[in-house]
């Protein structure tokens, strides 16, 4: 029986190739986005992990601190631990050459007198070791480079390599070239090695190391050595296995990763509507065929199976295409996420081709197939329940399509309201998955009320369409009102797509507005000098000497030195922002939102307290008056929280302290940002030009005026959301496919009507206009419901998601501007999507169309 029915299915597909293809494409796009995003994420994490492991060499354990590293005395402590065979210090810096392209180069500072036991360095065949190890160690300008880097820049041994260091441009002498194996594979081979003590000097690390790599005695269990080390090292230091360090990074980029995965399902949800629509229409179109099959004795379950079988095959084929396509999309997506990881989080990764994960492919395939089956379930059930006697009538004799009744409407509204209530009244930390359930309730409710809602909006639109477009407009909107089943699924697809666009856009806009307002209030220096064109560099910093040079320039009133770093905190990390607090308070007008502003101004410059960001307080439940303990490399630092301030510097939450206090405890005098305040009357632009001239070719530094700095921060936020923007485009594209599909079906269903219009004198142009206007009507209805859904989802994003992911409290702004801007764009997309169906309608043969049943 099933085999016989499959022949029916094949005939249907053959007759409706375009529709079948588009349905498949809808699911393929959804699957491809999910697969691409997950693949890109895992590739990035794999690359970060691989970088860590290759850099770790054969180390079995690593001692790490915060980003500032830890004092070198720790090395003796580690070396004296029983069970530690080799312990070698490491410093990592992503530096830049002073060549014209300022190419980045990962510089690894190691103690080569002992490090070769831990890391693989294969030198060129001419050398089995460093050319002259003693000269290499004795001269701080010594550097070893990898063969790919040497080839790229035409360098050979004894050549000079100019690099920007914390002390400005320095010329290094190449004392050896190693092959691209082991450590030479890291960072795409753009890697160099220098003596760790020289690296401390030229990159202004004081007497700190970033980490210690160690090899344990094979006779002693690693766990034992790990425990012994933990027992004797300061609490701010962590003993970890190289493989586990990847998990820490995973945790750091978690917000980005989770956000992307969640949003990637939007495209699949849009695909679900397309399939639902296609199958609903298919059932409608095959009414008579189903009646015949039932009359011939085919049982209802087999009819249902036939439709579900079709859905399964379309879902599987679409998913296969999606997985294949997604893998190629992942190439670009990987670059984007690597860019974000580098720009926002400062993690350098080795460029890697996408990793194909079979489990991800199977999951995406299953998600696509399942979505297809879910979408087809209702239409298949409707087909199975069809009354054969009615079905055998002509298509015009069908009962008019009914929209959902009152109980379902109430159920839908109930779901929406309960979702909103949860968002409004639930506590911030009840569990991630549970909280994401709130938005699911809202979306389900919207889907249930959608047909009714779409009809109401269409009816409201009717007079406008009649007024604006005459009879064609009226016919178009009536067609939509008469066939709610056909159009509401398309409207639903559009709604989900636009909901995603509006809410993401509104969230980004709200966040940007908030950050802008915050910056206007707090970022008030005249000029800013930064170490990187990205958010910050984790490894490259300025020295205090540069700051002093700038401070000595004529026209400078004062400079403040900012160190922005991350420290271990409560099993996670927290941002620490250090600055000369007296100067900072002088420039701020009541920065302390909660707590005693006067007390903060008094105590913080003395190093006798902290102020914390609002999101730090939200994340960790820290209140004013609490004593906050941070584990520094020299021991615990505990101070009272004097106040809470508004700050959006980090999603992890920031702790502000005086620079001198930080320097004492972290033994770190490096600088990430230099804030310059000019004397009254000094021209910012002119001073910037002068500073640029002074630093040109000497120091890698980026100088911004106040306005430029704020724009730069905004552009970084945009970069963070790049992938979301890409997903928005895909969601709209999938929704546009839905419109094409719907209109093709509409034209196909209305062949006879179109034929009659033509027969009674309707012009081709009028038919074309009618089809195009139907698309416009669908788009407008979609826009309205999309705006509603978008507003609800924005509420969720700012009220729940932002708090979960970053602890930020973002004020709600209805995305009115975005919706207004989107209107013409969506209408144009709808018109473009309607172009093909309109041509079909225009090309219909009048006599054949009139005879069509």
């Amino acid at each position, binding site marked *: 029986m099933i085999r016989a029915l499959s022949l029916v299915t094949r005939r249907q597909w053959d007759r409706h190739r375009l529709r079948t293809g588009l349905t498949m494409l809808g699911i393929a796009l959804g699957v491809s986005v999910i697969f691409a995003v997950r693949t890109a994420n895992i590739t990035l994490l794999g690359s970060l992990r691989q970088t860590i492991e290759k850099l770790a060499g054969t180390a079995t354990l690593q001692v790490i601190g915060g980003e500032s590293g830890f004092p070198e005395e720790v*090395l*003796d402590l580690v*070396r004296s631990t029983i069970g530690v065979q*080799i*312990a*070698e210090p490491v410093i990592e810096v992503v530096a830049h050459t002073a060549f014209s392209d300022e190419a980045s180069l990962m510089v690894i500072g190691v*103690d080569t*007198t*002992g490090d*070769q*036991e831990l890391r693989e360095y294969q030198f060129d065949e*001419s*050398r*089995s*070791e*460093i*050319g*002259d*190890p*003693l*000269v290499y*160690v*004795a*001269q*701080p300008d010594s550097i070893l480079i990898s063969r790919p880097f040497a080839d790229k820049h035409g360098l050979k041994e004894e050549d000079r390599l100019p690099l920007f260091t914390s002390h400005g441009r320095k010329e290094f002498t190449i004392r050896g070239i190693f092959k691209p194996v082991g450590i030479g594979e890291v960072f795409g081979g753009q890697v160099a090695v220098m003596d760790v*003590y*020289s690296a401390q*000097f030229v990159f202004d690390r004081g007497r700190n190391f970033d980490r210690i790599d160690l090899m344990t005695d094979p006779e002693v269990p690693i766990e034992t050595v790990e425990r012994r080390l933990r027992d004797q090292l300061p609490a701010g230091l962590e003993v970890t296995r190289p493989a586990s360090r990847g998990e820490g990074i995973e945790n750091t980029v978690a917000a980005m990763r989770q956000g992307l995965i969640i949003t990637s399902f939007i495209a699949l949800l849009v695909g679900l509507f397309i399939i639902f629509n296609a199958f609903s229409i298919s059932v409608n179109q095959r009414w008579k065929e189903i009646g015949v099959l039932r009359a011939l004795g085919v049982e209802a379950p087999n009819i249902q199976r036939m439709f579900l079988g079709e859905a399964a095959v379309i879902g599987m084929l679409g998913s296969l295409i999606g997985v294949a396509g997604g893998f190629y999309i992942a190439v670009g997506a990987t670059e984007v996420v690597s860019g974000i990881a580098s720009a926002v989080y400062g993690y350098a990764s080795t460029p890697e081709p996408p990793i194909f994960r079979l489990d991800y492919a199977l999951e995406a395939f299953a998600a696509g197939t399942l979505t297809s089956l879910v979408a087809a379930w209702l239409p298949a059930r409707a087909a199975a329940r069809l009354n054969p006697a009615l079905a055998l009538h002509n298509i015009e004799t069908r009962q008019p399509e009914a929209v959902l009744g009152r109980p379902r409407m109430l159920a839908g509204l109930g779901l929406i309201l309960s979702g909103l209530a949860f968002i409004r009244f639930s506590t911030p930390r009840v569990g991630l998955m549970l909280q994401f359930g709130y938005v699911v309730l809202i979306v389900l409710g919207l889907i249930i009320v959608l047909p009714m809602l779409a009809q109401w909006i269409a009816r409201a639109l009717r007079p406008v369409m009649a007024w604006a477009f005459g009879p064609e407009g009226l016919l178009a909107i009536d067609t939509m009102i008469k066939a709610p089943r056909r159009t509401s699924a398309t409207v639903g697809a559009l709604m989900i797509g636009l909901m995603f666009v509006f809410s993401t856009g509104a969230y980004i806009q709200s966040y940007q507005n908030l950050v802008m307002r915050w910056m206007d209030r707090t970022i008030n220096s005249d000029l800013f000098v930064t170490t990187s064109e990205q958010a910050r560099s984790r490894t490259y910093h300025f020295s205090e000497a540069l700051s002093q040079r700038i401070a000595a320039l004529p026209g400078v009133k004062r400079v403040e030195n900012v160190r922005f770093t991350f420290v271990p905190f409560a099993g996670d990390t927290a941002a620490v922002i250090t600055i000369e607090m007296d100067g900072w308070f002088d420039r701020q007008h009541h920065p302390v939102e909660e707590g005693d502003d006067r007390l903060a101004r008094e105590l913080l410059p003395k190093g006798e307290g902290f102020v914390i960001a609002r999101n730090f307080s939200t994340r960790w439940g820290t209140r004013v008056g609490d004593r906050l303990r941070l584990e520094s490399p020299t021991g615990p630092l505990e101070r009272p929280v004097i106040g809470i301030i508004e700050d959006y510097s980090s999603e992890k939450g920031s702790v502000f302290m005086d620079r001198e206090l930080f320097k004492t405890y972290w033994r770190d005098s490096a600088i990430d940002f230099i804030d310059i305040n000019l004397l009254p009357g000094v021209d910012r632009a002119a001073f910037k030009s002068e500073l640029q001239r002074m630093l040109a070719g000497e120091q890698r530094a980026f100088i911004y005026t106040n306005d430029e700095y704020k724009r730069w921060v905004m552009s970084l936020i945009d970069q963070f959301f790049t992938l979301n923007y890409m997903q928005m485009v895909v969601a709209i594209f999938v929704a546009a496919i839905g419109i094409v599909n719907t209109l093709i079906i509409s034209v196909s269903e209305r062949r006879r009507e179109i034929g009659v219009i033509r027969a009674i004198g309707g012009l081709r142009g009028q038919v074309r206009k009618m089809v195009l206007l139907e698309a416009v009507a669908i788009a407008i209805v979609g826009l309205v419901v999309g705006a509603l859904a978008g507003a609800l989802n924005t509420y969720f994003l700012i009220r729940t998601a932002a708090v979960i992911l970053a602890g930020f409290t973002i004020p709600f702004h209805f995305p009115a501007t975005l919706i207004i801007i989107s209107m013409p764009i969506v209408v144009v997309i709808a018109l473009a999507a309607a172009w093909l169906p309109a041509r079909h309608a225009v090309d219909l043969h009048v006599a054949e169309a009139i005879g069509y049943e």
Partner: protein
Amino acid sequence: MRKHDRISRLGPGNPQRSCNPLLVAFTLGFIPLIWSHIQVVYCQPHPATHPLTSDLRPLTSFPYLPPDARKIMEGVYRQDTSRDSSWRAVMDVRDKKGVVRQKQFIFRKLGSLGDSKTLVRFTDPPEVRGVGLLSINRKGVSERQWMYTPAIQRIRRIAPQERSRKFLGTDFTNEDMAERVLDDFEYRLIGMSDLMDGRKTYKIEAKPVASDRTQYKFSYLWVVQDLPYVVHAEMYDARGRVARIYHAADLDRIAGIWIARRVEMTTPSEGTRTILKIDDVRFNLGLKPDQFTQQALEKAE
């Protein structure tokens, strides 16, 4: 047997000639630890002159009974009587292409084997001038070494390393630099007729008592018969191939102590060679312990 380029000035049958453990240590160089190793492995006491080994006399003087290799090595261990010493050295490290990198340094030592402090200060070329290396050697305790680099004014602790790795690009491995324990080896006399630089020598085989004691599977040592001094040695790797060849020449007597003015270490598999030429040797200068501290290491000379 290979003839070396210069015959020792050491005359046969001189009763005063004994191997001072310093001798080979001098010649091997700038790294103080090598000194003790060489004493143990390469030096043989002169039974007639050393008070502690006078009991060997009946053994060695008996014409048909070969001397006990172990006894010879024990005697070597007790050779040093100097309190302190100092000398200058020129070191040529020749790579397989024949390119020579030359360095000069001053070596100072205080104390005796198993309880010594040494300080090496490089004087040339300019890139390494002022680099200092301080070592404190105590029997049974890991050697402690610090290096001072004047360019960054930093002292670093040098960690104990893999024994087979070359030390700072020379042909000496880290193991060659470390103090060795006499009991880690078993000694066997395997020849008494080899000529080395025209001198009759004992050929001694030194085998580790356990494989983890050394990178070498075994070594052959050639000790001049009428002067207990190792003038030649071959060290074999785990596969039984010659890993390194040591040769001492231009023996000279200074303040009653014999030293080799020229020492050569060769790595046949790599075609590389390190040659040390010793000059300005002085003993018992009255050096003070505070000249062998980290503070002293930082002081420019």
